[in-house]
């Protein structure tokens, strides 16, 4: 049954309708049964629809949501991954397996570059072997695209589907689903294990509909992964309400590069770049590729123009909606672009060798402490250059800067466990 574990609108369904259970898509008091939100908008014709999850097809009052059962698969030996975990990874992985076995929530707090995905494999295998269903979800489509091939390789014989907006529908029932958190809205009581990567990232963080979707998509245990978990989740872990594993070290064992602060006057940005910044960049490009983060998409063009004039290297820019984004990121990884000016964190799981990070206007309100930690985490990921430089250019010392830098320092002093 190709729709096992899903909840769909009539328009989505091409077969198997008779085995589905129909429930009203909206309650009489205007709550959407797919996303759980009560923000119904009345159409001029008089009926209401849910605007919150409208991108997955419109939930309209009076219509049905069709829910499909999620039967178990036969037991198998699912893990085909041959790699080995480091000692610290092994310990976190064992804690995770214990939580999954006890069907309780677990937070895996691992710095960027700690090798989170590999640590999941034993817990995922544990459930797949028993015939259970596993979902691995991430807020951003790039992360989903990056996780999918690694999971497909680690569980080579397990039927797997990748789900994101615009991806083709699965033709058959699958045991392992890699999906955007948005697509979780289409699942109901499906996953025996649901892993949510980057819980702290947009659009999942602070999105009530997606949180509701995650909680209703799972029937077993939920695992949260984060490099920068919010205080609420951490508190729950520290108080023992949910399982907690901490991985403060990258897989290569070196500490995280600590950002250094440099002061600049911002008045003429982005039209005029301060000389100390230009000098720093000139120095960096002789040894490193540089990721230059800026707070505003309007800054990209003038800064790229200025840098092309000032530096004798290939400079490009990329932003979240950039159509050439994938190609540009590839070119940057391949070393064809030396300086990438960007407003977005790019693919988080990707390792770029010898990559320095410069954040211009790191004191901008657009950069929260979690974003600052993520940006700094782009540097030093490879074992051959764990101490890539990270520079924050600021005019004021903000609370977010302070939290970001002290968190990184704390992680560096922490022991795994």
């Amino acid at each position, binding site marked *: 049954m190709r729709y096992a574990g899903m909840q769909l609108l009539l328009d989505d369904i091409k077969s198997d309708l008779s085995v589905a259970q129909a429930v009203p898509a909206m309650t009489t008091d205007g709550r959407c049964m797919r996303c759980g939100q009560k923000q119904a908008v009345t159409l001029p014709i008089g009926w209401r629809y849910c605007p919150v999850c*409208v991108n997955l097809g419109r939930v309209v009052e009076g219509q049905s949501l069709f829910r499909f059962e999620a039967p178990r698969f036969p037991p198998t030996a699912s893990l085909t991954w041959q790699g080995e975990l480091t000692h610290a990874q092994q310990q976190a992985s064992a804690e995770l397996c214990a939580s999954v076995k006890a069907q309780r929530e677990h937070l895996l707090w691992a710095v960027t570059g700690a090798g989170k995905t590999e640590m999941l494999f034993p817990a995922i295998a544990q459930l797949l072997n028993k015939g259970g269903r596993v979902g691995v979800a991430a807020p951003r489509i790039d992360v989903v695209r990056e996780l999918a091939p690694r999971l497909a390789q680690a569980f080579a014989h397990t039927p797997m589907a990748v789900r994101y907006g615009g991806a083709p529908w699965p033709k058959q029932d699958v045991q392992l689903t890699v999906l955007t958190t948005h697509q979780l809205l289409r699942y109901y009581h499906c996953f025996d294990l649901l892993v949510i990567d980057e819980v702290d990232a947009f659009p999942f963080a602070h999105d009530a509909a997606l949180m509701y979707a995650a909680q209703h998509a799972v029937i077993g245990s939920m695992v949260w992964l984060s490099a920068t978990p919010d205080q609420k989740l951490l508190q729950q872990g520290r108080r023992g309400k949910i399982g907690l594993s901490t991985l403060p070290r990258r897989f290569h064992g070196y500490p995280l590069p600590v950002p250094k602060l440099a002061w600049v006057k911002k008045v003429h940005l982005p039209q005029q770049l301060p000389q100390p910044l230009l000098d720093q960049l000139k120095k960096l490009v002789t040894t490193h590729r540089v990721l230059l983060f800026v707070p505003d998409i309007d800054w990209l063009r003038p800064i790229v123009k200025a840098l092309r004039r000032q530096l004798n290297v290939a400079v490009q820019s990329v932003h979240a909606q950039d159509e050439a984004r994938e190609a540009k990121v590839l070119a940057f990884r391949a070393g064809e672009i030396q300086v990438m000016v960007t407003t977005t964190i790019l693919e988080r799981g990707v390792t770029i060798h010898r990559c320095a990070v410069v954040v211009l206007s790191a004191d901008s309100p657009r950069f929260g402490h979690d974003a600052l930690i993520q940006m700094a985490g782009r540097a030093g990921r490879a074992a051959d250059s764990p101490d890539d430089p990270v520079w924050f250019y600021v005019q004021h010392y903000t609370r977010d800067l302070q939290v970001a830098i002290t968190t990184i320092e704390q992680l560096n002093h922490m022991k795994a466990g």
Partner: protein
Amino acid sequence: MACVLCGQPIQIEWTLTKIFTLTKVRAPHLCRACLRQFTRIDQANACPGCGRADSPTLCYDCQRWQKAGYPLLHHRAVFQYDGAMKSFIQQYKGLGDWRLHVAFQDLIQPPKSTYVPIPTEAGHYQARGFDPVLGLFDHLSLHQWLEKADTPVPQAQKNRAGRLMTPQSFSVRPLVSLAQISQITLLDDLYTTGRTLYHAADALREAGFHGTITSFSLIR
């Protein structure tokens, strides 16, 4: 105020002109980042007949309408039909996200006229729960004088030749008196071949209207 596309709060830039001019300023419904995705048509370089971008002289299509004996509609449109606009239309008309009807209202300010919207087929209204054209322009005073008979194939599913062959399906509602009116501006969401709007203009003339007819759309 939150942006109707991304939900982020909108910062209104109070320029001196906005503060000192006495014209009514409508609050924007899109944030800067969302609005920037759309491409405005430079009116100074648009086709005087159909509002097509980058065609300062009368374009070939308009010359054909003229040769076929149609008085030109001197159409104006605000935005180009590019990728961003296609996905807007997909969310608004395709998914039926009614919230978006206000998205461009602060930018839709056609010259003063009597505004007559192009009507939607009854079947589409039933399925969508709203009329997308009325929605886009419901900040203006509209006169729903035209009606449309249901057609077998929707305009959107036809190619250019198919669209141009579409037979007349508009008529002026009974009891509408056009005698006192000197100018009408037809309103539509999208100008593709012009066939729809020229049919609507024909229907008004057949009903005895002798004034000027122009047209306006969000997209060209």
